[in-house]
């Protein structure tokens, strides 16, 4: 929202211009909302002055050029002067003539419309052999409009008095304006602030000054009128969506360019000047926030049986040609403005081409109405039309200002286009909501602000922005002004008081609390610990997107349709699905990292991610997709590095990392069923299911050849994915073993078994036996894996365990140890057909 301080000043009783700009901006920021940009126009016109053209003759060598002499009042230094102190300028404009007042850009000045792009500095230079000292400027060059046909003329009619030679341009047409571009978002609930008048009121209020709206805004001033010459039938078929609909016909229009000041103003606030009729509607919209539309009455007649104007719902399939000739097909859900024959405008959004005002227009209908904000918004989104009218209507403009705005528009239409009223003013509305009345306690306000303001102080702040108040029993009775659609709740008054008083003046105090500790989150603390542990063993935490490409899921063997929630409006296919598992995203990060370290002797890493997975069909207590807190990790090494540092299956290194987070409490079983999303990437035979305390938590292993090939994973790659939430609940506290006062004896036990015998089966059997012995005779023990050996081509393997034994009451003798080890060998022999070596 571009606020023109000149325009605000014109309608303000408060002297805004005397407030230092820095202070004004600081207050706007602190009490109204963020300032996006500040544009000071005066410097753009520095050195540019008003001159009178004294003589004007044809250029000797160019038909379209004139050679003029101009009078600058003799004030410009260092410029070539001829007879009578006049200055020679060559001009290409067809409208230049002797005696006109024009705008001169002396040598050394910059052409204003080139300032932001490629600044063009004027000089004295020859044009076809004749010296031109600077130039006379067109509206385009002065950033008034797009008009480049002729030079800007300052006649008495435009200026109102005879211009003074030599005066700076900034003394005219409001060209010394100052624009404050406020962020639209903060005005979402302030429809009135989409008009300069509303902002002018706030500028007074935040400076502690009382604003007084102009008379025309408070009461509608319609002229007495009897002479109904141009008839129009106005009806409202949808009062629920169009709370108020007003229209009037005006005749004897002369369509032409608007006065220079108006064109310049519109350009400064970002609206393109078109012609006086359209410009007046835009000017009033920018002033009051109420969009207006002007229809060509005679064209409208052509498209009516009987001249008529009415809002109604569109018909499905109905066509409408918009301004700019774009034709749209309506769906039956838009509000349109129609005659009794057809739709002619998209209500609140854009006018139609068939009834557009053009240079031949003689009579117009002005529409001033209120439309349902939600409907306007939907229509705007449906057709991608984001006009100034939409910006305002979708904040819900007050129907209570339609009449004053229309009356003012008629006056201005007369002033700028010679228009005369030609019909009654139609005003169709049902029960209009009256402004909200509220009673708000002074204590209520102070309690929420932390302030200590009196009823009088509060009232003054509110009265400054024309919110009427009276106080009774420490309660402030308020009637919202008719333009304030946002004041509904007592909290809205809290906001007004706080803002107008200044939040920076409020007492700042920390809330009081007891010393009761805030509860910690077990899961977050667990995640923190997991990060610390894994980083300490050389792993790198990554984070990847929660969304995933369907192809990546397929590459890892996961059927997206079955397992993943589909995102229907993703900007990119990379974000098509919610991931049902973290592993695919993690695997997708492997190849690039291997590649970027290519050539390194130590090209290996372990990456892990802690994140959420969502598996389609799994719901939580809220009936929403269950959020599974997962940890996934991948270890990998390129072939060269793997050969140098590692041996055999990468599975075993992944398992070592797994035991960091399971604190070696995991139990694993062979992965048989790989039909879950989380198990899909893993290769049977080299993968297992992870359980802790009997509860299944995840999967660990190497990846299927298809997965490795599709994602270019090195052969030495393995990983796991585990449910952290469940893991945290299942992990048991470590059990303390009292230290032993007597020395520990160690002995290796090597058993030869069939290759098919699992290590774990043997170890468990040994454990069971030792535990039994401990129970019986009090020996403490430990079993440490030592070696696994198999001769080539052999169907046997040798498992070596280092058995540590001790006793809390004695030092063990060798024979005693030998006996115990022998007993272990016997058990193994019986159970596994194992041979002690």
């Amino acid at each position, binding site marked *: 929202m571009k606020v023109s301080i000149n325009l605000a000043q014109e309608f303000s009783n408060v002297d805004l211009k005397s407030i230092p700009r820095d202070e004004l901006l600081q207050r706007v920021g602190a009490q109204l909302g963020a300032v996006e940009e500040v544009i000071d126009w005066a410097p753009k016109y520095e050195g540019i002055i008003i001159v009178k053209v004294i003589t004007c003759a044809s250029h000797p060598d160019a038909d379209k050029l004139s050679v003029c002499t101009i009078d600058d009042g003799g004030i410009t230094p260092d410029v070539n002067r001829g007879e009578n102190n006049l200055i020679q300028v060559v001009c290409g404009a067809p409208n230049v003539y002797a005696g006109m007042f024009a705008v001169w850009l002396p040598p050394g000045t910059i052409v204003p419309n080139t300032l932001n792009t490629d600044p063009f500095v004027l000089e004295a230079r020859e044009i076809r052999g004749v010296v031109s000292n600077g130039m006379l400027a067109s509206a385009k060059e002065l950033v008034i409009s797009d008009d480049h046909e002729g030079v800007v003329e300052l006649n008495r009619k435009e200026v109102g008095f005879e211009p003074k030679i030599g005066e700076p341009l900034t003394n005219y047409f409001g060209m010394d304006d100052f624009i404050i571009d406020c962020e639209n978002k903060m005005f979402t609930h302030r429809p009135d602030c989409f008009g300069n008048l509303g902002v002018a009121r706030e500028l007074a209020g935040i400076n502690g000054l009382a604003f007084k709206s102009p008379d025309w805004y408070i009461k509608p001033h319609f002229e007495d009128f009897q002479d109904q010459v141009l008839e129009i039938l106005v009806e409202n078929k949808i009062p629920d969506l169009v709370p108020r609909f007003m229209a009037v016909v005006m005749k004897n229009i002369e369509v032409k360019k608007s006065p220079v000041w108006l064109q310049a103003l519109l350009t400064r606030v970002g609206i393109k000047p078109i012609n006086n009729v359209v410009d007046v509607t835009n000017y009033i919209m920018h002033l009051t926030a109420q969009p207006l539309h002007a229809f060509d009455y005679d064209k409208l007649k052509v498209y009516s049986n009987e001249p008529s104007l009415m809002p109604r719902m569109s018909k499905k399939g109905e066509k409408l040609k918009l301004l700019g000739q774009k034709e749209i097909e309506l769906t039956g859900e838009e509000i349109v403005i129609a005659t009794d024959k057809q739709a002619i405008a998209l209500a609140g959004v854009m006018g139609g081409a068939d009834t557009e005002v053009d240079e031949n227009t003689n009579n117009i209908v002005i529409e001033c109405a209120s439309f349902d904000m939600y409907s306007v918004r939907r229509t705007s989104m449906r057709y991608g039309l984001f006009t100034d009218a939409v910006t305002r209507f979708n904040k819900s403009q007050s129907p209570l200002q339609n009449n004053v705005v229309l009356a003012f528009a008629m006056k201005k239409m007369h002033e700028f286009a010679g228009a005369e009223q030609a019909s009654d003013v139609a005003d169709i509305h049902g029960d209009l909501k009256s402004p909200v009345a509220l009673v708000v306690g002074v204590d209520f306000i102070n309690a929420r602000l932390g302030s200590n303001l009196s009823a009088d102080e509060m009232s003054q702040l509110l009265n400054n922005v024309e919110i009427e108040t009276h106080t009774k029993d420490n309660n402030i009775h308020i009637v919202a002004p008719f333009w304030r659609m946002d004041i509904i709740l007592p909290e809205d008054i809290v906001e007004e008081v706080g803002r107008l008083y200044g939040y920076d003046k*409020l007492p700042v105090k920390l809330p009081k609390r007891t010393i009761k500790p805030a509860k910690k989150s077990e899961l977050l603390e667990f995640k923190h610990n997991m990060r610390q542990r894994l980083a300490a063993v*050389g792993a790198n935490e*990554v984070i990847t997107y*929660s969304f995933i490409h369907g192809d990546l899921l397929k590459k890892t063997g996961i059927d997206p349709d079955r397992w993943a929630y589909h995102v229907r409006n993703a900007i990119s296919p990379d974000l098509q699905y919610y991931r049902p598992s973290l592993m695919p995203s993690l695997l997708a990060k492997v190849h690039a990292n291997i590649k970027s370290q290519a050539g390194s002797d130590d090209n290996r890493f372990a990456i892990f991610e802690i994140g959420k997975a969502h598996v389609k069909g799994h719901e939580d207590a809220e009936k929403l*997709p269950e959020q599974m807190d997962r940890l996934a990790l991948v270890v990998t090494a390129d072939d060269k590095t793997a050969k140098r540092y590692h*041996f055999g299956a990468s599975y075993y290194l992944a398992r070592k990392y797994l035991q960091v987070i399971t604190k070696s409490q995991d139990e694993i079983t062979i992965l048989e069923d790989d039909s879950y999303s989380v198990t899909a990437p893993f290769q049977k035979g080299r993968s297992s299911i992870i359980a802790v305390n009997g509860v299944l938590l995840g999967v660990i292993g190497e990846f299927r*050849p298809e997965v490795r090939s599709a994602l270019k994973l090195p052969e030495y790659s393995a990983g796991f994915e585990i449910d952290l939430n469940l893991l945290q609940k299942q992990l048991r506290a470590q059990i303390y073993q009292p230290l032993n006062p007597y020395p520990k004896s160690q002995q290796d036990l090597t058993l030869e078994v069939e290759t098919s015998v699992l290590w774990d089966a043997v170890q468990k059997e040994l454990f069971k036996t030792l535990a039994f012995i401990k129970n019986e005779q009090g020996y403490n023990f430990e079993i440490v894996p030592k070696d696994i050996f198999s001769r080539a081509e052999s169907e046997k393997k040798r498992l070596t365990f280092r058995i540590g034994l001790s006793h809390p009451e004695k030092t063990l003798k060798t024979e005693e140890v030998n006996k115990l080890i022998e007993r272990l060998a016997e058990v193994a022999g019986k159970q596994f057909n194992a041979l002690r070596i």
Partner: protein
Amino acid sequence: MSYQNPDVARVAEELMAKLDSLPDKKLILRDPLLRGLFDQLKTLPPQERALFGKEVNELRLKLNSLAGDGIVIEEQLPIDITAPWDVNTPVDKMPDFFPTEQGSIHPLMQEIESICNIYQRMGFMVEESREIDDDFHMFESLNFPAGHPARDDYDTFMTDEGLIAPAHTSTMQNRVLKKYKDSLEQGEPIAVVIPGRVFRNEDLDVTHEHTFYQLEGVYVGEGVNVGNLIATLGAFMNEYFSQQLKTKLQPFYFPFTEPSFEFAIERPTALKKGNTEADQWLELLGCGMIHPKVLKMADIDPEIYTGFAWGGGIERLVMMKHGIEDIRHFESGKLEFLRQF
């Protein structure tokens, strides 16, 4: 060559015969017959496995060479998943962790943890946000009427089921308010911060991510006011930046707070840049007094209880702190980036 195992021998013969007729010779390696041998392997008694496996591998290697040097990755033989390491692993190549100095924790996670740590010391609980939610929590419970233009600012991702990828951590407000309502009524203010991942359906560039992290805060009690809000956020900032900083509120609009603000602090010394007015301040958060309708939606009486809420992004803090030039690095998974933290 001949195979001792009759099954392997038969399959070998059939596949050799098939090979000539195949348009793409590599397809032979995907033949179900070959796969069948591997499946069969798993069912064999242990004593038969070694030889059978060896012959199957030989067959495959042969087919592989016949098929041309296609990059076909071999399916490896089953291993003893319960063992601590592979058979015949030499002592110097036992599975061992990578060097400690190579490990790292993601900078965003480090920052979230240190921020939460400060709030915890201030007496706040920490609850994680959701990554998938419904319209009620994301909009309705936060006083965004359906069709309201305030929703325009949220380009939300949606699933086929109409579920939403939250665009702000405020999606948790209603849950948190309801969860702690009882203790509020026992006289304990609700004090919770909510870190979480949020999503905006927009294109990526050096300063824009569709996925980023926010931290939401909620404080509700009796007599809680705007002055408390300023003080609380100010106290956090002073601790976070280890410096006493001036603070500033700018009026703003959010449907779920009334009044609403943008909270700015004086730019900390460590982050100083230019000398313009804009350079003096850092806008870090959106905040405000919780809208009475939001409290009512959680069955909390706004006549008795008032509170404030705030929310801000994490990435920007981390980027400023380390001078990170591109927001996309965070989710890139690049070790070159991650190992610097």
